[in-house]
């Protein structure tokens, strides 16, 4: 019934609008407006454009100044601080060009609106002017390219030798990380070795695999270069850590990497922002399916000493999944399985709370609950 009423109301409103439209047309016919060369509202539109410009620019500057705390999270990596500076320098140049060109566009539109006795100025070209405004943008662009080039080269150069190496893997719909363990060397992997227990497809015929560990948060030390070795095991994902100005696609079959140096611990930033539960986050920025918007992973930046301590406390994957590894390990490496100090956990396999591939993606809240 309500539907019907709304329908009738809509039809009536439409009919009224139609009527107004018809009357307006007839009035114009009576007034002879259509025989005028220029519509009587010409001046109104000229004024409208200038008003739009004024109000629009006003809103632009007003909002840009009041919303600053919302639209750029603090950069907490060394290269992030530099690219932010570049971003704002470029942005100021662009804002200048944006304001000047739009002002000219709308002010000219207003100023040179049709007047009965005016004649437009026949002005087909002016080579000097054209050369000037080709050369100026070219110079500005050259400067920006040079600047960007320098930063890009610094960001993408080889990572320092002493970098902390961590592997991060994207899957539908979660991130997982793997640390190299005490030998500082990540064990090999192959996608055919992946199963419900061995999410990374770690190769247990490789000795280096035996001390690797997979925590549920990404711990990194402040002030040290960190190298992320990035891969994906099903579709494209993209590691995006906004606070670190870090983004790199995770590609199945083609490992990628990104290195950076964090400059503020989680503790420090929490105090600075006055948000005791603030966390650095990783999100996915390459569309990957149903749960694309929910691939959250937490980064904890800690002081180097804390990091060392934390690192030493981690239990290896092998020690937590002895039974599983026993079935995969070749004879000569089986001795490595028990080498670690006795593990005080129940004998059940896989206590690491990794997301289960068999679960529906939306229910993949394991990681969130841990936060």
């Amino acid at each position: 019934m309500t539907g019907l009423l709304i329908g009738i109301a809509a039809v009536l409103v439409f009919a009224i609008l139609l009527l107004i439209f018809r009357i307006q047309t007839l009035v114009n016919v009576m007034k002879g407006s259509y025989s005028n060369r220029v519509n009587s509202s010409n001046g109104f539109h000229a004024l409208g454009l200038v008003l739009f410009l004024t109000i629009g620019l006003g809103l632009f500057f007003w909002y840009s100044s009041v919303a600053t705390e919302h639209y750029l999270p603090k950069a907490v990596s060394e290269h992030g601080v530099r690219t932010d500076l570049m971003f704002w320098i470029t942005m100021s140049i662009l804002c200048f060009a944006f304001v000047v060109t739009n002002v000219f566009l709308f002010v000219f539109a207003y100023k040179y609106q049709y007047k009965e006795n005016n004649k437009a100025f026949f002005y087909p070209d002016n080579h000097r002017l054209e050369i000037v405004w080709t050369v100026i943008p070219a110079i500005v662009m050259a400067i920006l390219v040079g600047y960007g080039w320098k930063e890009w080269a610094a960001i993408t150069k080889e990572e320092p030798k002493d970098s902390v190496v961590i592997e991060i893997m994207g899957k539908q719909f979660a991130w997982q990380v793997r640390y190299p363990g005490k030998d500082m060397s990540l064990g090999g992997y192959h996608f055919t070795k992946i199963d419900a227990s061995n999410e990374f497809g770690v190769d247990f015929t490789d000795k280096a695999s035996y001390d690797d560990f997979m925590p549920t948060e990404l711990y990194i030390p402040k002030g040290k270069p960190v190298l992320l070795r990035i891969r994906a095991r099903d579709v494209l994902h993209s590691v995006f850590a906004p606070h670190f100005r870090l983004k790199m696609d995770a590609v199945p079959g083609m490992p990628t990497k990104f290195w950076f140096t964090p400059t503020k611990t989680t503790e420090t930033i929490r105090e600075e922002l006055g948000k005791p539960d603030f966390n650095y986050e990783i999100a996915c920025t390459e569309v990957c399916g149903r749960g694309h918007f929910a691939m959250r992973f937490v980064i904890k930046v800690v002081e180097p000493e804390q990091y060392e301590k934390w690192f030493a406390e981690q239990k290896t994957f092998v020690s937590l999944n002895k039974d599983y590894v026993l079935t995969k390990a070749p004879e000569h490496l089986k001795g490595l399985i028990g080498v670690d100090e006795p593990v005080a956990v129940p004998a059940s396999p896989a206590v690491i709370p990794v997301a289960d591939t068999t679960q529906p993606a939306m229910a993949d809240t394991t990681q969130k609950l841990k936060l």
Partner: protein
Amino acid sequence: MDLAHTSTETHLDHGHDHDHDHEELSWIQQYIFSEDHKVIAKQYLFMGIMWAMFGGAMSLIFRLQLGFPNASMQWLQPLLGDWIKEGKLDPEFYLALVTMHGTIMVFFVLTAGLSGTFSNFLIPLQIGARDMASGFLNMLSFWFFFLSSAIMMVSIFLETGPASGGWVIYPPLSALPQAVTGSGLGMTLWLTSMAFFIISSLLGGINYITTIINLRTKGMSFFRMPLTMWAFFITAVIGLLSFPVLFAAALLLIFDRSFGTSFFLSDIYIAGEALQHTGGSPILFQHLFWFLGHPEVYIVLLPALGITSEIIATNSRKPIFGYKAMILSMLAISFLSFIVWAHHMFVTGMNPFLGTIFMFLTLIIAVPSAVKAFNYITTLWRGNIIFTPAMLFSIGLVSFFISGGLTGIILGNSAADIQLHDTYFVVAHFHLVMGSASFFGMLAGVYHWFPKMFGRMLDDTLGYIHFWISFVGIYMVFFPLHYIGIAGFPRRYYSFTGFDFTRSFTDLNTFVSIAAIITFAAQFIFVFNFIYSIFKGRRANANPWRSNTLEWTTPIHPGHGNWVGELPTVYRWPYDYSKPGAPEDFIPQNVPYAQTPESNFPNEIDPVEHKH
């Protein structure tokens, strides 16, 4: 092909036979399987408008989701069925909507709807030809587009949903039905539809190029062509060179999906099993895709810029400033458009050195683009501007082109792009510079050439209302997205509640959604105006905008063959507006210098006629 040609020659020989030709054509030949470029143009236009409303409506659904994340969508269930579960939009359907919105807008509206309509309509009329070089291929071009549209439309109604991996359909997501349900039959239909679409646009493009090169009327040298013609010509060349690459990519993807090849797939473990694919590269697909994808931006934009050049000159009553510079900058843009594609791929893991090269090439494009913007502005300077609805839309286009183009300078900088890639900053950027600018170009074109298409005028007042709501609305929709993008909000997110860094801006997102709803609603004013005016609009006179180009020398309702009697001869460039000394503020291209001694410059003399 021969049919049109013979009829063209018939016209040349016996110009007055042309009414006779008409009677021989059945209704179906005249209006359905027509080979007349004007009818085909209208067919493209109707399809374009239909798709635009469809694509726009889709964006409203996901804007509702983003702007009002807690509201129930139960009321949409009669329309969307199982895609609404317990009042919530299904996340996969959200992705499908985003994908379809992009595909429809980029390809069906702004490529077919824009180029298809105006290239078809204007090329023969502005260069003085009876019809396209091949009327038959032209007809095929439209019907391939129709087939492609029909297949895409069917895919929307599949139970597993249409393609949903984004309009860029990156594999492996688009190759594996296990990854997202839209990659099943929906993706198959998407690829089939696009294959037909590419055929359609190639057939059209070949025709546009051939016609412009071969069928220009006497005196219509390349440098006397209106800038619209240059724009359509260059666009067709770009399309011809780049669409086949997309075709190749689609074909390889079909092989990967259906025949077990591994062009784009490698080392995949999904849904509990390791797939046999090995050795392929997903990055290869991205290279192939963007080799079309970037020129596609200009395929969409250049026709709009061409249309705008014509409209701004006509309504400023001034020659377009820097005619040759405009042509040169279009040529430069189109050349550069082929060598900047990898700026979409700075953070895909591509070799960083390539990033450097592509940043350099990308930022060069800013120079010819800036030249174009400056030339438009200078054309307004000291003009005598008449604000027709078409003129307002053209000025709006220039503003969008500047505002959206500038942010491209940041995105083209690989180091700055790290943070902004795949965020709303990108969404804001291309919706302004490519989406809205081209959309305004298309609307400007409809307002300007409607009298030539239908012999009647669109209603001005409705046009003005349409312009103001759309212009303000589009800025209100896309400008705020820059802030959201700088804050790092990723694209194609169903919801922003999962992260600390995306907690803010809920009010701004609501604002954007409301602006989008109002802007979309205003398009119905246009649709009403369009349909109403076809039947009941005020009758147009032959040259309502007092324009110089040849299409306004045809009868009010040009028949098949366009001109009655001989084709017009061209004596001058199309921009003799407000020429000093001339009694009127325009001199059409077909007026010889001999008739305008009072306004001729010293070197302006008619060529000596050679008798054959």
